[in-house]
């Protein structure tokens, strides 16, 4: 019940913040008279969010005890995976797609496999081949550019 109340309050708070940010929107000088302006719709949605948050707050009932969404260990795992993904983006900007991606695949496959712990060689082959296939498909077949990084 407490969590539900907090969620309701959180929604209302977010709606209030959006209202404030909406008031900060600069309207260009050529806005016409018969138009409601570009602040109306964000206000409309923000107020709606506040009302919904109120609804969540007021209708918060004691819920049956259920499994927690995620335990502490899960949060740590997620944080680690997110870190890997963000490092990958940074890596791509430095060394480019072709080098960063096999590394990403190897790391992610190892992380996702968990206890199964496959041998290194199949993972290396998978990482390199998959990167290659995707590279050829996107760059040569579909003419879509992929990051080349600062070194190339």
């Amino acid at each position, binding site marked *: 019940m407490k969590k539900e109340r907090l969620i309701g309050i959180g929604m209302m708070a977010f709606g209030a913040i959006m209202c404030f940010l909406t008031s900060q929107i600069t309207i260009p000088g*050529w806005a016409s008279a018969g138009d409601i302006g570009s602040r*109306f719709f964000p206000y409309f949605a923000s107020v709606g969010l506040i009302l919904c948050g109120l609804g969540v707050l007021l*209708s918060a009932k004691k819920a049956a005890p259920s499994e927690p969404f995620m335990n502490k260990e899960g949060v740590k795992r997620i944080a680690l995976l997110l870190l890997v993904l*963000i490092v990958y983006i940074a890596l791509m900007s430095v060394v480019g797609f072709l080098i960063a991606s096999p590394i990403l695949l190897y790391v992610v496959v190892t992380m996702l496999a968990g206890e199964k712990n496959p041998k290194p060689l199949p993972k290396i082959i998978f990482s390199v081949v998959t990167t290659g296939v995707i590279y050829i498909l996107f760059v040569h077949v579909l003419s879509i550019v992929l990051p080349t990084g600062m070194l190339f």
Partner: protein
Amino acid sequence: MSAAFMHLIQPFSIVLMIFGDVLGIIFGAIPGLSGGLAITLLLPLTFTMSANDAITLLAAIYVGGVSGGFISATLIGIPGTPGSVATVFDAYPMSQKGETVKALGVGIIGSFIGTFLSCLIAMFVTQYVARLALMLGPWEYFSLCICAITLVVTLSNGNMFKGLGGACIGLLLSTVGFAPVDGANRFSFGNINLSSGINMVAMMLGLFAVCQVITNYGKKQQALPDVSNIKVSGFGVSIKEILESMKTIVISFFMGLWIGFLPGMGAALSNVAAYAQAKSSSKHPEKFGTGCVEGIFASEVSNNASIGGAIIPLVALGIPGDGAGALLLSALLLQGIESGPMLLVNQPTLVYVLFIGILLSAVITLLLQFFGMRWFPKLLMIPYHYLFGAVTLICFVGAFAATNTLFNCLLMVILGIFGLLMAYIGVPVSPIILGYVLGGNIETYLRKGYSYSGGTFVEFFTRPASLIFLLIAVFSVLWNLFGSKIKAKRARKVN
């Protein structure tokens, strides 16, 4: 229409359809993946294609995805997509009794009937709906969109306030960037990458794919059950059995068609509703759940009939009936094509490519599934970590390809975290997506309606159709809030 047909029977188009069908079936069959995810992953690929080719491919994936869900439902008792939940009830027991092939056969035929016939009907009905639609103005469209989003929320399980809140969040997300009409720069905080709004590809990939990978990893959900000892050979269903189930097939078909047509509801609802109806009207309700042919037909015919049903408002009004429809709409937007009732007038070839593409894809799916039946169990043996590792990489490629900026990849990851947060607080994703996809249109309709009326909101309420839609929306909210209490009062009065 003939131009569309000529386009589709070219070898390249056939290859696209086969590829799309296979991909859709694979994604639909593996629990954790879906046809919608496949469409999302391939959206960036469609940038460099022509609009006709893009639609051909994506429609094929859509068809394959809805059809494929019954495969894992039958083989491992887990629905591949929400549209095949009711299929599990009878297909899995039938498979366990040793009649796997029969169960698969019924699923394949049911899926085909649903898709093919519903699409035929859609082809003929859409033009009339579109003509009706042209009589509507921005007031009616605004109210219709509001009504659609409200219905999505009120008709689904879960906290209505959280659902509506999610819709509001979606609307706010859609306001980022330059505003319609006067071009005010909203919520971009000086970041030039956000000035054109939150990128749709980053949104879809982040909220669905990345979020799923992260969540599964955090919850350690990975293993797919062992299917190595299932053998598949031969066909399995007799014509007699099909004819015996004909009444169920027909009723389920029309239920699926109608539910698919209504905004906000689609295959996920129709399969369960049709199954419940078939069971309650059957002379042998006790057979349902033990592995009876009618049960599988009810579920699979209706969920595929929803495809045709959903295409009607998608084409005629530009309003998607479900998530996959929203993705098809995004694909059109990415190609620079405006959706809405003028689509049929401005781009008739494209529309018929969609319809005939679905028809042909249904046929191709039928053939692929009959001849590919023995490989189905192998699909489910792909190790999770390789599969989702590849999916992760494809997400990044897709996000980058959309805007040629690594910022978009970062945005995608952030939206993935956002999706996780929404799941944690219990706000469902569908209303967020609907609010985001429709938000731009809704605001435009609101502003146009206001200025066409000379600067007043009155006409939103005085025009009959607009008023009706708004009343339906309000009524559905009130019913959600007080309906159960009213029903309880009536029950007490009876007692």
